[in-house]
C-alpha cells in the first residue's frame, strides 16, 4: 500500500540544485588529460607475437657468448659423462639456461625498474610475459640440441629409457619456469633466485650421494608425464593471467 509519504519523499529527493562548477577547472582538466591520451595499439595477438620475437632475439643479442659457452659446456658434459650417470647429468644440467636467464631477469628488476617500465608503451606484465616465454623457448631449444647430440654420439636408441630421461630432464625446466614466473611477479629479488639455484645444487648432490637419485629414476615415467602435464597447464594458466593483468588495480576494471 502506498503511503502519503512515498510521493513526498520522492518529490523531495527529485529536488536538486547543482553546485556551481568552475568552467576554468574543466578547461584545465582537458589540457591535463591530453598527456594521458591512449596510444593506438595493434591487436593483442600481434603485440604478443612482436614482444616474444623481440625478447627472443634480445636474449641472443645480449647473451650470445654465454649461450655459446653454455652449449659447449653441455656438449662436453654429455660427451664425457659416465654411462651410469646419464640421467643425473641430463636432469641437473637441463635447467641451467633458465637459471642464468632468471638471474639476469631478476637482477634488473628492482621495484624502481618496474615503476619505470610501467610508463612504457607496453605494460610491465606484457614485457615479463614475453621474456618468460622467450627464456623457456631458449631453454627448450638448447635442451633439444643437447639431446640430439646425445643421440648422435652415444648411439642411444629412441627407446622407453631415452623417453624416460627426456621427460625427467623436462621436469626441472618446467618447474623452474613456473618458479621464475611466480618469483618475478611476487618478490622481484635476485636473492630468492640465488637461493633456488643453491638448493638445486644440493638436490643434485643428494641425488648422487643418497638413494634419492635411484628412487627418482625408478618412479614410473607416467608419474612424470602427469606431473609435467599439470605443471605446464598451471604455467599456461599463470601466463594467461599475467597477460590479462591490467595496468590499474584500483577496482575500476
Amino acid at each position, binding site marked *: 500500500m502506498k*503511503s502519503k*509519504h*512515498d510521493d*513526498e*519523499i*520522492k518529490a*523531495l*529527493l*527529485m*529536488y*536538486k*540544485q*547543482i*553546485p*556551481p*562548477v*568552475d568552467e576554468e*577547472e*574543466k578547461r584545465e*582538466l*582537458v589540457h*591535463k*588529460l*591530453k598527456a*594521458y*591520451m*591512449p*596510444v*593506438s*595499439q595493434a591487436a593483442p595477438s600481434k603485440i604478443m607475437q612482436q614482444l616474444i620475437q623481440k625478447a627472443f632475439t634480445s636474449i641472443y643479442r645480449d647473451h650470445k657468448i654465454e649461450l655459446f659457452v653454455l652449449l659447449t659446456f653441455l656438449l662436453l658434459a654429455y660427451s664425457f659423462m659416465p654411462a651410469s650417470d646419464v640421467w643425473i647429468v641430463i636432469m641437473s644440467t637441463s635447467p641451467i639456461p633458465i637459471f642464468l636467464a632468471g638471474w639476469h631477469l631478476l637482477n634488473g628488476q628492482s621495484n624502481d625498474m618496474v615503476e619505470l617500465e610501467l610508463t612504457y608503451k607496453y605494460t610491465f606484465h606484457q614485457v615479463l610475459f614475453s621474456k618468460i616465454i622467450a627464456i623457456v623457448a631458449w631453454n627448450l631449444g638448447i635442451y633439444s640440441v643437447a639431446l640430439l647430440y646425445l643421440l648422435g654420439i652415444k648411439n642411444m636408441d629412441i627407446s622407453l629409457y631415452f623417453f624416460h630421461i627426456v621427460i625427467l630432464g623436462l621436469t626441472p625446466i618446467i618447474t623452474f619456469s613456473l618458479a621464475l614466473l611466480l618469483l618475478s611477479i611476487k618478490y622481484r629479488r635476485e636473492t630468492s633466485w640465488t637461493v633456488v639455484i643453491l638448493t638445486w645444487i644440493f638436490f643434485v648432490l643428494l641425488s648422487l650421494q643418497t638413494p634419492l637419485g635411484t628412487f627418482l629414476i625408478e618412479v614410473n615415467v607416467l608419474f612424470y608425464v602427469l606431473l609435467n602435464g599439470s605443471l605446464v597447464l598451471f604455467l599456461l594458466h599463470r601466463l594467461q593471467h599475467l597477460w590479462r593483468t*591490467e*595496468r*590499474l588495480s*584500483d*577496482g*575500476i*576494471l
Partner: protein
Amino acid sequence: MNEDSVLVRAILQGDEEAMEQLVYRYYDEIFYYINQIGAPYEEAKDITQEVFISMLKALPKYKEQGHFKAWIYRIAYNKSMNHFRQSKYVTTLSEAHEEVAEDDIGGTVENQSLVKELLDSLPQKQSSALILKYFHGFTASEIAKVMGVSLPTAKSRIFQGLKKLKKRLKEDEN
C-alpha cells in the same frame, strides 16, 4: 551505437576533441555526485580530476557494452570511497554542502536543507544508492554496477533507505 561509444572509439584513436566532448558531457554530474556523497567542494574538484585521468588510462581496457555512464560512475564511486578511507573521515552531507548552501537563494533553502538532513541520517551506502537513483536517474541494475554489488543488494539499499526516510518523516510529523 550510442554517442558515448562513438566518443570512446574516437578517443582510442587519439582524437583530443572527442575527449574534450566527453569531459564536458560528464564533468558536472560526476563532480556533483562526488560532492553529494560526502566530499567537500574543493576535494570533490580534485577527485573529479582523478576520475577522468583514471578513466582515460583505463580506456584501452574498457569493454564496450553500452554502459559507459555506469562505468565512469563506478570509477567515481571507487575513487571517492578510497579518498574517504585515506582521509580517515567521512564528511557529512551537511558539511559538504555548507559552502554551497550559503549561496542558496530564498525559497530553495528550505527544501535543500531538508534533503540534506534526511540523507545525512542514512548510512552512506543507502544514501549513495538514493542519490544515484533520484538525482542521477540510474536504474537499480545500473546502481548495482556502479556500486559493485548484486542487483538484490542494490534494491535492498534503495528500499531500506526509503523506509528509513519515511520513518523519519512520520516522526517529524508526530
